[in-house]
C-alpha cells in the first residue's frame, strides 16, 4: 500500500476515441513526463463493421461494392485488389485497355489521397494555411474522378473481368489539364515543406525511423520508403497495367517527417508521369471480358499498393457464387507499431504529427478484434459474443 502511495504517479494523456486530432475513433494513451512522452499504447476496434463476414453472405459481384466501402479514400485499391484476386481464381484474362484504366484510377486515387494527407498532416502541425490550400487543389483531382465515373469517392469502376468506364479523348484532355495544374502545385508544396523554417521546426528530426527500425517494425508504404526501404508492390510484383507502365520507386533517406512529406510529394510526380503515359498509350480494345458467376474452387492472395502501402487480400472460393472467406489486411495496421515505438522520447506536441505521418486510416484496419477470454475457452457462443460486444462498445 505504501509503495503505491510513494510510487510516482503516471500522468497519462488520453487521445481519443473522441479527440480533435483524430478524424476517426481510436484510443491512444501517452504517458508523459512534463511535455516528454515516456510511453504509448494504442487500442483499436471502435469502428469494426464486420465487412469480412458480410462478404461471405453476398455474391462475388456484390462484394466488389461492399469492399469498396472499407475505405473512403482508397476505395478503388480495395476493389482492384479484390477483382484481381477473383480474376486469378477464375483464370480470366482482362483486356489490356481495362487494366490500363484500372491503373489510371489507381494513380488518380493516389494523387487525391496524398493531397488529402498533406492537408491533414499540416493541420496536425497547426499549419492551417497549407491544409486549406492543399484541400482546395485536391478538388481538381476529385473533379477529374467525378468526370470519369460520376462519383467523387466510391468510383465503382471495376467489374469482374474489366472496368465500367471508358476514357475518351475529351476526358483525357481534361485529365491532362488538371494534372498540369496539380504538378505545378506539387512543386510549390515540395518547396514549402522543405524550406519553410517554422514547418521544418516541427518536422525535421521528428519521428526518426532508421532503415533497420523500419524493417524490424515492418513498416510499409510511403512511411517505409521515407526511411529508405525500397518496398513497393507496384515495382516488386507488378499488377494490372504496371507491367506495361513501370513505376520508378521513390525513396528518401531523411528518415524523419520531412522525408515522409518529400516521399509522398515525389510520388505525386511519378503518378503524374504515369497518368500522362497511360493516356498517351491507352491500348485499344474491349473494356470487359466474360467472367463466370461461380468462381472455381481455390485460394489466392492478391496485393495492391494502396496510397498508404501494401494492401493484402486473401480469397478462398468453394466453387459457389459466394466467397468462402475474404481476408483483408490494410496498410495502416502494419504501421501502428512504428507510431507507438517512435512516439517515446518526443514532445507531446509532436505526437499528432507522428501519428498523422503514417497516414492512418482507422476504420480500414478495424477488421478484427482480439478477444481476451479470461476463462480460457476460445469458443464463444453467440450469446456470449453478443454480450461481449455490448460491453466492449459501452
Amino acid at each position, binding site marked *: 500500500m505504501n509503495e503505491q502511495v510513494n510510487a510516482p504517479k503516471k500522468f497519462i494523456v488520453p487521445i481519443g476515441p473522441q479527440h480533435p*486530432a483524430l478524424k476517426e475513433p481510436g484510443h491512444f494513451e501517452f504517458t508523459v513526463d512534463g*511535455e516528454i512522452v515516456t510511453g504509448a499504447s494504442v487500442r483499436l476496434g471502435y469502428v469494426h463493421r464486420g465487412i469480412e463476414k458480410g462478404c461471405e453472405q453476398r455474391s462475388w459481384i456484390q462484394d466488389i461494392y461492399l469492399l469498396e466501402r472499407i475505405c473512403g479514400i482508397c476505395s478503388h485499391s480495395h476493389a482492384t485488389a479484390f477483382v484481381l484476386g477473383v480474376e486469378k481464381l477464375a483464370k480470366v484474362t482482362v483486356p489490356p485497355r481495362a487494366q490500363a484504366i484500372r491503373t489510371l484510377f489507381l494513380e488518380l486515387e493516389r494523387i487525391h489521397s496524398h493531397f488529402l494527407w498533406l492537408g491533414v498532416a499540416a493541420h496536425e502541425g497547426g*499549419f*492551417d*494555411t497549407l491544409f486549406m490550400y492543399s484541400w482546395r487543389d485536391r478538388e481538381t483531382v476529385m473533379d477529374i474522378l467525378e468526370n470519369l465515373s460520376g462519383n467523387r469517392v466510391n468510383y465503382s469502376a471495376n467489374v469482374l473481368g474489366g472496368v465500367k468506364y471508358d476514357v475518351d479523348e475529351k476526358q483525357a484532355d481534361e485529365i491532362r489539364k488538371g494534372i498540369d495544374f496539380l504538378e505545378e502545385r506539387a512543386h510549390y508544396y515540395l518547396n514549402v515543406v522543405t524550406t519553410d523554417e517554422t514547418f521544418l*521546426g*516541427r518536422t525535421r528530426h521528428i519521428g526518426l525511423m532508421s532503415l533497420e527500425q523500419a524493417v524490424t517494425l515492418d513498416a510499409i508504404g510511403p512511411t517505409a520508403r521515407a526511411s529508405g526501404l525500397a518496398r513497393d508492390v507496384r515495382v516488386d510484383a507488378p499488377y494490372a497495367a504496371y507491367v506495361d507502365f513501370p513505376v520508378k520507386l521513390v525513396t528518401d533517406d531523411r528518415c524523419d517527417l520531412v522525408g515522409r512529406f518529400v516521399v509522398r510529394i515525389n510520388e505525386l510526380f511519378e503518378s503524374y508521369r504515369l497518368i500522362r503515359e497511360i493516356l498517351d498509350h491507352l491500348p485499344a480494345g474491349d473494356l470487359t471480358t466474360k467472367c463466370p458467376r461461380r468462381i472455381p474452387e481455390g485460394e489466392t492472395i492478391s496485393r495492391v499498393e494502396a496510397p498508404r502501402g501494401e494492401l493484402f487480400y486473401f480469397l478462398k472460393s468453394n466453387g459457389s457464387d459466394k466467397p468462402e472467406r475474404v481476408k483483408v489486411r490494410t496498410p495502416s495496421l502494419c504501421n501502428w507499431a512504428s507510431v507507438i515505438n517512435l512516439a517515446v522520447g518526443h514532445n507531446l506536441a509532436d505526437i499528432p504529427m507522428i501519428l498523422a505521418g503514417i497516414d492512418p486510416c482507422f476504420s480500414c484496419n478495424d477488421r478484427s478484434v482480439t478477444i481476451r477470454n479470461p476463462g480460457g475457452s476460445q469458443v464463444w457462443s453467440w450469446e456470449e459474443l453478443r454480450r461481449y460486444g455490448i460491453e466492449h462498445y459501452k
Partner: protein
Amino acid sequence: MNIAINPLIALLVFPGGIFLLGWGLFYEFLDRKLVARFQNRVGPRWFQPLADWVKLLAKEEIIPDGVNAGLFLALPVVALAGALTAALYVPMAGWMPSSSFRGDLVVTLYLLSMMTLCIGLAGANTMDRFSLVGATRALTQLFSYEAPFLLALLGPALAAGSWQISDVNAYAHNNLWMILYQPIGFLVAIVGLMGKLELPPFDAPEAETEIVSGALTEYSGRGLALFKIGRNVELVVGLSLVAAFYLGGLSNPLEFILKTLGLLLLTAGLQSLFARLRIDQTVGLWWRIGAILALVQLLAILAGQAIRGLF
C-alpha cells in the same frame, strides 16, 4: 480628442463597457474573416462572433467535479474585468484615456496579464489532464513573452520620458512615428501581443490537435463566453496600445480605426503564415531572440539619449 466623459458613462458605455465589448466582437470577426480569406476560405458572416457569444451565454454552465466552484466561477469574471479596466488607461478610439496617473503604463501591462494568469489558474483548478497541460503551457508562455513585451513598450516610454500612457501618446503624436527609429521594438511588441492572445503560431496552450482546448477545456456556457470576450477586449486594448506607442499616437477616431486595422491586418497575415510553434520553441524564440532584441533596442535608446545629453 479631449472631451471629458462622465465617469459612469466611461465605465459602462464608452470607452469602457459596451463599446469595448462590441468593438472586440467586431475585431474578432475581422480577424477571423481576414485569416479565412488568406487561407482561401469564405470565413464567418459579420454577426457570427456575436451570435456565438449570445449562444454561449445562454447555455448551461457545467461545473465539473473536483474543482473549487468559487474560483471556477470567479476567474472568467476577473479576467474580463482586468481587460476592461486596462482599457480605461488607453486612448481608446482616439479619446484621452478616461483615467490617467503617473506610471499607469505598468498597471495597464499587469492588467493585461491578468487574462493569462486567470486562464492558467482556471486550467490548474480543474482535474482535466488537457487543462493541466494547457495551464502549464499558458504560464510557460507567459514567462517567455512577458519580459520582452514589457521591454518593447518601455522603449517609447523612455523616449517620451514618461511612464504615463497619455504622455507617451501625446509625444508619439507630436514626433516622428516611433516604428521608424524603433523597428525592433515594434516587431517585438506586435509579436508579443500575438503571444499574449495565444494567436497562431503561438497557440500551443490551446493546440486543439494535441490538448483539445487547453486550459479552457472544462469551461462551458457563461464562463467560456466571458473568457472569449475578455480575449477580444484584450485584442482591442493591445492593438490600441501598440498603435499609440509606435504608430504616431491616437488622437481621433479615424486614426484609431485606420491604425488598429492596419495592425490587425498584419497580425492576421502573421497568423496564417506559420506552423504552430512547440512550447519549447516558443520559449527558445523569446529568450534567445526576442528578449535580446528588445534589450538591444533599449540600450540603443539609452545610448542615444546619453549622447544627446552630452551636446
